[in-house]
């Protein structure tokens, strides 16, 4: 194409169709756009409806009656739902903390060291990601039952222990994967330089490795937090009467009909999850600051 045939830059900005379609301009093909739109519709229409109906001024929540925020207040004042949310947040916070520390250590170990049966070990560490949640849930329930934790009331907050342990178990491999993939880009000469300049192993970890690892740690922690917060299957098997989490509570409420306060509470959960996920993805974005070249 000659320079004369090209539309002015201003025109190009406001009306991209002014340019002929390039071989890789899939985003400008009609069938591609229709396909994309239907995928988004299929995935997000239910969520959009759920959020919209959380503002619906109707008890039966089938027909749109008008805008209201009162079901947010109803949800807030529902003591059981509120306790379930508190439990969920405590479990998510504690299990995220432990999952992040354990996951970071596993991630570093897999990135840094070579040892016999590493492949098997790696697979073993990823097992909680791979095996069906129901299997993990049932086996953990059997385990806690054997310990007697399921039959005796440990009293709040100790009755959250089984769930916390279960959540740590399935969250830490995700942290390990994120941390490890972050460390792959690490320039080993940075570590050598630190030691060469007189730093001990610990100082090198603290001042060089950890700052590099930080985005991976934060991303991994947010991932663990989100996974823990909305887990249903494993939690269902490991929770007792006094340790109901938000998803489990919602499930039991839904069986008696979907009321707008469930929509409202679910919307809050969606917002928390989306914010955490967006932050995690931002943190995982490739390092653009260079690698100490």
């Amino acid at each position, binding site marked *: 194409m000659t320079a004369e045939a090209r539309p002015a830059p201003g025109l190009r900005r406001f009306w991209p169709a002014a340019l002929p379609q390039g071989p890789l301009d899939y985003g400008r093909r009609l069938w591609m756009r229709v396909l994309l739109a239907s995928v988004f519709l299929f995935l997000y229409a239910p969520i959009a409806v759920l959020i919209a109906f959380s503002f619906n001024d109707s008890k039966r929540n089938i027909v749109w009656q008008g805008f209201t925020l009162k079901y947010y207040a109803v949800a807030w004042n529902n003591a059981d739902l509120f306790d379930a949310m508190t439990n969920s947040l405590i479990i998510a916070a504690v299990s995220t903390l432990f999952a992040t520390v354990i996951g970071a250590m596993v991630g570093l170990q897999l990135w840094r060291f070579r040892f016999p049966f590493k492949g098997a070990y790696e697979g073993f560490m990823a097992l909680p990601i791979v095996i069906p949640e129901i299997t993990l849930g049932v086996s953990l329930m059997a385990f806690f039952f054997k310990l007697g934790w399921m039959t005796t009331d440990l009293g709040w907050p100790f009755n959250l222990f089984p769930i916390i342990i279960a959540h740590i178990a399935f969250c830490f491999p995700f942290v390990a994967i994120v941390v490890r993939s972050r460390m792959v880009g690490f320039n080993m*000469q940075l570590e*050598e*330089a*630190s030691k*060469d*300049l*007189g*730093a*001990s192993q610990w100082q090198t970890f603290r001042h060089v490795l950890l*700052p590099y690892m930080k985005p991976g740690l934060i991303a991994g922690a947010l991932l663990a937090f989100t996974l823990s917060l909305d887990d249903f299957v494993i939690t269902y098997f490991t929770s007792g009467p006094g340790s109901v989490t938000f998803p489990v509570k919602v499930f039991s409420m839904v069986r008696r009909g979907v009321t707008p306060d469930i929509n409202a509470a679910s919307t809050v959960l969606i917002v928390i999850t989306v914010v955490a996920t967006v932050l995690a993805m931002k943190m995982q974005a490739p390092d653009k600051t260079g690698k100490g070249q």
Partner: protein
Amino acid sequence: MSAPIIQIRNVVKRFAGGTTAVDNVSFDIGQNEFFALLGPSGCGKTTLLRMIAGLETPSEGEIIIDGVDMAFTPPNQRPVNMVFQSYAVFPHMSVLQNVEYGLMVTGTPKDETRKRAKEALDMVQLGHLGERRPDQLSGGQRQRVALARALVKRPKVLLLDEPLSALDAKLREAMQLELARLQKTVGITFIIVTHDQDEALSMADRIAVMNAGRVSQIAAPIALYEAPASRFVADFIGKVNLIDATVTGVKGNEVACKAKGLGEILIPSNQPAKGQVTLAVRPEKLTLGTAAPKKAGLVKLSGTVRDVSYYGDTSHVIVTAAGIELAVNVQNDARRSSIITRGQNVWVSWAPDDTLILTE
């Protein structure tokens, strides 16, 4: 050579898998010396440097730094510092924090740390960029940060691993001069690893040429260039014409050699030589002419120009004469100097004194 600051004694480094990177190497490096480890890639020069830094441990031998065997001393306890090939400037710290790092981790008081770091940055002309982040610097500037960061520790020896390889040609030349000047200013030993012979020749006081894990020759640049000890060194440092020859006799201070196409020539030499040898003569020692040179006592050959590469200041000419190929460097020292063209008949000549006899 002044008193040695580094003594390398029978050092061997074997890697898992059976490769021997450094094979029984011994030599000394003097105080305040600018020393270069030169060799093709894979010759063990970087491994040797890393063993001096403490980033690798030798399989055998001693590495004596300032009178103490430090072969197994960890890098953070050695009085040496290194400038890494990738510079390894900490990306999450400012320039000043990078330079302060080595003092900070060893518990130097804050005000002294700041003062020394600023001095070091001034020394490499980066005093005004202390607040910058490494990703806001050019490659040359990052290299200076790495230099300042190492020098601020006041090491007894500064190690430089291919420090100029990532810079473009112009900057590399400027940095060569600056490094040499810096070494004279701070007055400590510099050990530089390089595969670039120009870099080694122009900066170093002495050069160790390494090949396949062994040291081939250690000498000052001029000696290395004009009197290489082996065929490998002659060929690796600069360009050289190598001619197979047979020694036919020794007459006083002269060795008579017979080579294909050259007939018998007498070469002034003090070394004993016999049997098969290699004659080496540098391309710039050869003279090209259209007529046979009148001066007596020269090695003369008549041949045909096979190729001419023009470089502005010089032309590199390949001449086929009597069945052998000779590279000749011609200085283009006059604007209208006669132009040599391919296929032209020429005479090549050189003084027998410029010929070296290599026995290994």
